[in-house]
């Protein structure tokens, strides 16, 4: 009996892998469907699904970059503190002192690359008409994913807490105060009042909700940190699941329209 056979007949192995490695199509199906990680992927994919000239692979690359961002992001979280006192210096320490501190740059470059690949992916989907019925809803889900990715970029941009970050977020969030009705300097805000008491003012409008204060400060840093690291990634993960599910249910990637 070879070592491999011995291991594969052991109780430890058999308790983890219930079926032998696939040797024919039916086997393959049963192995895929009984494994929580493998069943996320379809059992088999059309040949056109891996043809680069058909799909550009941009959707797949975007997902890969999302995973890269998640892993690098979690690692960065071990050395970054989202407070006024520490934020800027922690980033400097990551760059100069931490081993493989280039992770911080990888995270940043990955973010830029992800936005680019998302646009290329949307462009490809448009060119191949893969937004047409029955795939219209998935296009909508994709647009929401785009907005959430841009929001991830926006919230992440503040975290180094340098001049570029503070002013970019100040300028970006100032747009929220000019929104109709929900911004305190926007049209219609004065209409929302109860008995003369304004409901929308500098301490209670969309911009205040976003920043957690009336100007970019400590509250904003913490708020953006939580949004960037927890809340929005969870929402994105959920929508990615819907997005992939829809592709499979509509006939798999790179199928005929």
């Amino acid at each position, binding site marked *: 009996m070879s070592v491999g056979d011995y291991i594969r007949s052991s109780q430890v192995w058999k308790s983890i892998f219930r079926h032998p490695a696939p040797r024919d199509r039916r086997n393959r199906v049963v192995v895929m469907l009984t494994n929580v990680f493998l069943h996320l992927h379809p059992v088999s994919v059309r040949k056109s699904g891996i043809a680069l000239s058909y799909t550009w692979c941009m959707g797949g690359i975007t997902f890969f970059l999302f995973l890269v961002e998640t892993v690098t992001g979690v690692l960065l979280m071990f050395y970054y503190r989202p407070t006024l006192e520490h934020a800027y210096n922690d980033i400097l320490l990551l760059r100069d002192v931490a081993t493989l501190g280039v992770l911080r740059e990888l995270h940043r470059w990955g973010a830029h690359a992800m936005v680019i690949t998302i646009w290329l992916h949307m462009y490809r989907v448009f060119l191949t008409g893969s937004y047409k019925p029955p795939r219209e809803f998935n296009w909508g889900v994709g647009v929401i994913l785009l907005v959430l990715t841009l929001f991830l970029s926006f919230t992440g941009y503040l975290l180094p807490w340098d001049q570029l970050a503070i*002013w970019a977020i*100040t*300028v970006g969030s*100032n747009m929220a105060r000019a929104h109709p009705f929900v911004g305190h300097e926007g049209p219609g805000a004065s209409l929302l009042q109860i008995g003369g008491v304004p409901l929308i003012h500098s*301490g*209670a409008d969309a911009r*205040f*909700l976003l920043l*957690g*204060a*009336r*100007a970019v400060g*400590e*509250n904003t840093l913490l708020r953006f940190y939580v949004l960037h690291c927890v809340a929005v990634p969870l929402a994105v993960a959920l929508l990615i699941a819907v997005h992939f599910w829809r592709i499979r249910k509509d006939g798999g990637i790179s199928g005929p329209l």
Partner: protein
Amino acid sequence: MSEPTNVTGTAPAASSKPAPPPKPAPPVKTPGKAGTERRIFLFAFFGALFGSWIAVAWTALTLSMLGMVLGTVRFLFPNVLSEPPSKVKAGFPDQYEEGKVVDRFKDQNFWVVRYQGIIYALSTTCTHLGCTPNWLEREEKFKCPCHGSGFKITGVNFEGPAPRPLERWGISIAEDGQLLVDKSKKFQKEMGQWDNPESYIKV
């Protein structure tokens, strides 16, 4: 902490004492006539109001879900803010030279300007997108580094993308004679508010 009181009232059993006798089972409550009437009334009341128990359940679920969402949104609006005080003392009026802009309070979000017989406090927030302009003495203008908005010594915009003049904060004389700048009061020229005497000090 004092000894916890023994709610049942029975004495704590010592190891030598025999086990206390088992207590009789509590009497089963059967609904008396009043209970049956109450049940009929509740049934009729809610039945009439909702049509069925399922409707009650759905209503309860919807209301509680709505309550939780609204509660979450309200939770996200902080009630306590740590901001610097809005009223700032800015020295005596005689300390300010005619035709000059003072940068001393730039970190506190205002310039003190004495020009053409009045002293006023200009907000350091560019009216374009919120950056902080710089006072350029030689060129006699405020110039915003972000997108190039330019303002005259009066605060009036004359170049760049700024759509309106810089804002003035409320200014008055405190009891000790010093200038008192009140950043909770804003005066905008384009709304005609610079005629308001609270926006300047005559000297």
